[in-house]
């Protein structure tokens, strides 16, 4: 009561000056023109997203879609602030590791019925991605937008300069290490590989390749301190130890991807989502190629994908649901694929995506990788326990503690988050 009074008083005190700037609340019926916002993080995908919004507007003349671009480092804090403050975008991109608190906090639009009524067939999407977002409450909050696996981007010019053969499709950890070492040339300022602390593009892959797991099968405890998982972490700390990679300090001053584009590192582990960025660098383009991840005890890559979800506080739930189905549907998938922005989740669009970047001849490796892909571990509040990785793993990467000790300490931290639910 008191708070309300103060708020009202403050409003009165300032209203004269501010009346001109306040935004009127939009009250609209179903056929009247409505505007919905679509929140995405900034990058090479923006033109494709704008094209999808345009295509949707053409089909639905009464709905305007405003694409809201947010920088990646502030995306999640902005989204949370917006959701808590009632100003989140109507539709926005979601990641599997982030969805749990939003779903548990009842912040997402339930589109189960809308999808059913519209006759969308979930079989058109990779089951693995749908499963990643399943909160076990029987509700559907979004539809997969894209799909990603990992591979090794490499710079052919640096291989040629060092006289090293390009990677074979069936290369092993041992081959990889050797290749990285041979490519490293301190005088020229060239390293074989960038080895940052990167879970999705980096050490999760090798943990699975070594036969380990990040989280145990029951999803309740960390498994990152098992001997196999430690092997997977050691893969990276070894690359740091033998100087095949720039140090973490160097990778903080200049990000791994920038180093790869500058021709300072010859190999860079990452997803298909970097393809367009690298393709757009016309100077670099002829030198870029991609190979499958090397094989450890087995072949593996983590896979994930973005989903389009809606905000429960939207003023236009029907229009938002309609847009979500469109943005993840076949026409939008075709737009995405043709732009090269990203590999769409919708079935049968992979070839279109590859054709968008004809000079990259081996993009097929990302699609083939589906055969041995493992879903990204996203148990519990995954963003929370993934967010603290640096606090525990940095010392191992710097070589001041062993991979085993770091993994043990990190496992305890993960268990604490998982126990909180």
């Amino acid at each position, binding site marked *: 009561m008191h*708070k309300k009074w*103060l*708020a009202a*008083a*403050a409003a*009165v*005190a*300032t209203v004269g000056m501010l009346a001109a700037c306040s935004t009127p609340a939009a009250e609209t019926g179903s056929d009247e023109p409505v505007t919905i916002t679509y929140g995405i993080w900034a990058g090479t995908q923006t033109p494709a997203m704008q094209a999808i919004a345009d295509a949707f507007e053409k089909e639905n003349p009464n709905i305007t879609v405003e694409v809201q671009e947010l920088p990646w*480092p502030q995306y*999640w*804090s902005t989204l*949370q*602030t917006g*959701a*808590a403050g009632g100003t989140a975008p109507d539709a926005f991109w979601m990641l599997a590791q982030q969805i749990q*608190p939003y779903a548990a*906090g*009842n*912040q997402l639009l339930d589109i189960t019925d809308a999808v059913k009524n519209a006759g969308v067939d979930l079989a058109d999407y990779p089951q693995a991605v749908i499963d990643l977002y399943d909160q076990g409450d029987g509700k559907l909050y979004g539809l997969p937008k894209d799909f990603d696996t990992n591979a090794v981007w490499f710079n052919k010019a640096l291989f040629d300069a060092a006289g090293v053969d390009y990677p074979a499709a069936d290369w092993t950890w041992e081959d990889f290490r050797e290749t990285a070492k041979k490519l490293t040339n301190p005088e020229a*300022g060239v390293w074989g590989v960038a080895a*940052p*602390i990167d879970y999705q593009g980096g050490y999760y892959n090798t943990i699975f390749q070594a036969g380990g797991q990040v989280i145990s099968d029951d999803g309740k405890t960390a498994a990152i301190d098992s001997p196999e998982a430690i092997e997977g972490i050691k893969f990276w700390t070894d690359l740091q130890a033998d100087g095949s990679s720039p*140090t*973490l*300090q*160097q*990778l*903080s*001053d*200049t*990000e791994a991807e920038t180093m790869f584009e500058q021709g300072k590192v010859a190999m860079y582990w990452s997803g298909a989502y970097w393809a367009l960025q690298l393709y757009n660098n016309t100077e670099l383009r002829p030198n870029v190629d991609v190979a499958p991840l090397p094989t450890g005890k087995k072949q593996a890559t983590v896979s994930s994908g973005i989903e389009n979800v809606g905000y429960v506080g939207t003023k236009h739930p029907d229009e938002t649901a309609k847009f979500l189905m469109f943005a993840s549907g076949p026409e939008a998938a075709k737009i995405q694929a043709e732009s090269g922005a990203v590999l769409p989740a919708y079935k049968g669009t992979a070839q279109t995506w590859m054709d968008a970047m004809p000079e990259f001849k081996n993009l097929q490796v990302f699609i083939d990788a589906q055969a041995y892909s493992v879903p990204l571990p996203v148990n519990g509040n995954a963003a*929370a326990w993934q*967010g603290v990785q*640096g*606090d525990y793993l*940095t010392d191992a*990467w710097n070589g001041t503690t062993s991979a085993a000790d770091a993994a043990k300490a990190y496992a305890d931290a993960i268990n604490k988050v998982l126990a909180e639910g």
Partner: protein
Amino acid sequence: MTSNVSSPVGRPRRRTGLGARTDWWALAMIAPALIGLAALYLWPFISTFIKSFMNVPVFGPGKFNGVDNYAKLLGDPGFWQALGNTALYTVLVLLGIPLAIVFAALIQQVSRGKAIYRVLFFLPVVTLPVAVGMVWRFILNGDFGLLNYVLSLVGIPGEYWVADARFTIYAFAVVGIWMGLGVNLIILGAGLQSIPTELYEASSLDGANRVQQFFSITLPLLSPSIFFVTILTTISAFQMFDLVFVMLGSVNNTALGDSKTIVYLFYDAAFVQFKQGFAATIAIVLLIIIMAVTALQFRLQKKWVVYD
């Protein structure tokens, strides 16, 4: 104080009546400030204080949890590290004050070019802190930063100043001093101008040289300004946020974990992890620390500040 109020003795009675009416005017004139400050400062202060005893989840209402947040904060090594970083940063930035005194005194002595020197020293103050952070992050880059290049010319090996937690606080302090010099210079320069020139003339006649004059006249008479600048610098250094945010927070920097300041910790808790109860606790503890340090400075000033 009352001497400044109108209606002194000996006015006609008519004035008293007008005085009674002005009371209402006074309230009307103060009302906007009062309402705004109550709604935007007093109430937030109270609500932050209350929240510091609550567990406030990301979405939904909070629950009281007694002093759990305080216990958790004081038991968190991250907090003590942030406090240590903040204290170190504050002490280092205070070293900029002697620098400002020297330059203020030097500028005072020149007959030409005062204005241009002041403007150039002041430029960093009118530069967006975000831009300052970016420029310095680049200058301090370990591989191709300007600083390491200059150092290499004189044979000193460079370091990863903003990527290695051993150096980050020192790097912030250099930037902090660079940013604050202009302000301190102006305040101290105003203090210098208020020192009567006769004092210098008299002591010159007594045979004192410039250095002696600096210590026997300038410093003591400038001490109130120095004290003022010290208080301001301390308070703002304790609240440092922008530099951490721009130089480390926006990129995947491995030094961030060990380089946080208290206000960065607060921002991270409140608006990244969305633990608002815990964040409120950080803010309250910061208030207590700043009050304690300021009170201490006011006690110590009796020993060195000269008021006439």
